[in-house]
């Protein structure tokens, strides 16, 4: 097995009494798509925020590419090659696609402005949204905005890409396109992906391995096939449906 790119050890995050992430350990090997699923409030986004440094853990360690990053501020983690997207698309609405995606290259100090712009054009072509280059993102369709956000996250060619529900709000056809794109990030660009997703079919289809959280705890881990048949997973999801 290849060495883990990201290793989370006994991570716990509390919000005034509520344990959002409870003693979670997981590791992601390089060039893999790791799915992360669980019912609402399972702690997926909090785990994301702890990995990217937006919330502080109460205990536990995070290692990224062999380096202990537990105390590193978010912008240094990003500069070290860890990028993410957000559940609700977060773009700068007055900015064009070009400017938004260029933000993603801020921490590439040796890239000239011209080279940075070329990199943006290349990524947009790859994602199939080249023509939006100089349009204000507020004018773009929702699916296009999603892709612009992904472009901003991958334009600097990070080692690790964290996607928080990238399929939310997309049509079935758009989800299929996304599925193919994620695969190509891994095979063409060597990016490792941690994918939080509510659309179970996408996760099970695209992931190499899946981790399941429930109430902040890790309740199952394995291949998509194993997870699809896991009793605890079914219980967690059915339990949620029963409550709803």
């Amino acid at each position, binding site marked *: 097995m290849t060495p883990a790119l990201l290793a989370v050890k006994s991570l716990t995050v509390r919000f005034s009494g509520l344990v959002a992430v409870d003693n979670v350990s997981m590791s992601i090997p390089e060039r893999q798509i790791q799915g992360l699923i669980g019912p609402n409030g399972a702690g997926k986004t909090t785990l994301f925020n702890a990995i990217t440094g937006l919330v502080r853990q109460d205990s536990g360690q995070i290692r990224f590419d062999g380096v202990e990053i537990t105390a590193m501020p978010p912008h240094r983690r990003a500069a070290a090659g860890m990028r993410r997207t957000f559940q609700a698309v977060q773009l*700068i609405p007055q900015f064009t696609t070009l400017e938004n995606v260029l933000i993603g290259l*801020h921490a590439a100090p040796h890239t000239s402005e011209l080279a940075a712009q070329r990199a943006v054009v290349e990524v947009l072509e790859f*994602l199939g949204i080249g023509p939006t280059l100089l349009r204000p993102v507020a004018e773009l369709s929702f699916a296009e905005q999603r892709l612009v956000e992904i472009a*901003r996250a991958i334009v600097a060619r990070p080692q690790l890409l964290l996607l928080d529900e990238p399929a939310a709000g997309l049509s079935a056809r758009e989800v299929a396109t996304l599925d193919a794109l994620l695969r190509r990030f891994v095979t063409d660009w060597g990016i490792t992906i941690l994918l939080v997703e509510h659309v179970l079919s996408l996760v099970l289809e695209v992931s190499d391995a899946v981790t399941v959280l429930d109430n902040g705890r890790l309740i199952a881990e394995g291949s998509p096939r194993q997870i699809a048949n896991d009793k605890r997973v079914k219980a967690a999801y059915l339990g949620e449906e029963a409550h709803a």
Partner: protein
Amino acid sequence: MTAIRSPWLRAVAALVFWAALCMVPLATDSYLQYVINLVLVYAIIGIGLNFLMGYAGQFAFAHAALMGIGAYTTAVLATRFGVSYWVCLPLSGIVAAVVGSVGTLPAMRMKRVYLALVTLAFAELIVWVLINWKQVTLGTDGVSIGAPELFGWRVKGDKNVYYVVLTCTAAMYWLARRILESRLGRAFVAIRENEIVAQCSGISIARTKFAVFAISAFYAGIGGSLYALTLGFIVPESFNLFQLVIHFSIVVLGGMMSLYGAVIGAVLLTTLPELLRDFQALQEMTYGAVLLAVIVFLPSGVAGVLKRYGLLPREVLARGWRALERNHTASAVLPDRAGGRR
């Protein structure tokens, strides 16, 4: 869009524009020339405040005081210590930048209202120092500034001062464009719009804020130094709260997040009061009313309106983006936008 697309035509247009600006003193009397000089000085100051307030969204109230620091650095060094104006000018910018960035360092972690309060107190403190540190500043008596000399050219009178101010404004405008069309300029907007996205894209919030405070103060300092040269005589009261209101009005009325806006604001805010000179009381009330109306009805200022009707070109924060525009008008006609992929 009315922007000229051919790079050659743009170059010619720019040349004509600058040649016309250079010939302005041929058509003015001393008073009109003085007003034009003030417009240029306020353009620099407006650009500086637009960095901080328009682009980076920091509501700091120290800009007038920093302008005062620049003006007094020049006046005191030139008049009392005999330092050459050409040394005083850049030094004024640097002193203001140091005071502005270090002095507001504790304010960096504060959110809007607190930042506003702290910087306002800081500004009052500076004016107080200018009034009371009489050994250096001569207090309320004010300091006069003599005409500087450059290789035998004596910069005396408004028409000569014009060329100094014009050169500086052109240089500062060019520098501002370079900064804004770089990663730093985009980072200013990123920290205003979304600190979380900024951080997760590798932008250090603290470093970016420090940079914008320093750059903005540098512009205020240079503007202050040129202000002293233009007026020839300065007093501490010139840099009080009313001065700050003028700066704010320039940015808000002209247009936040637009360099054109800062220049348009400087033109409006300098010429209108001169026209309304006989109605002092009316003038201050008009400022308040106009400022309020603009904030409510024209949040992007005069520049925003002109851009909407295609009378001003777009401002995209990416250097040389027009070349991309030319290349992309070709691919933009591809019909397949929804599917997109090939």
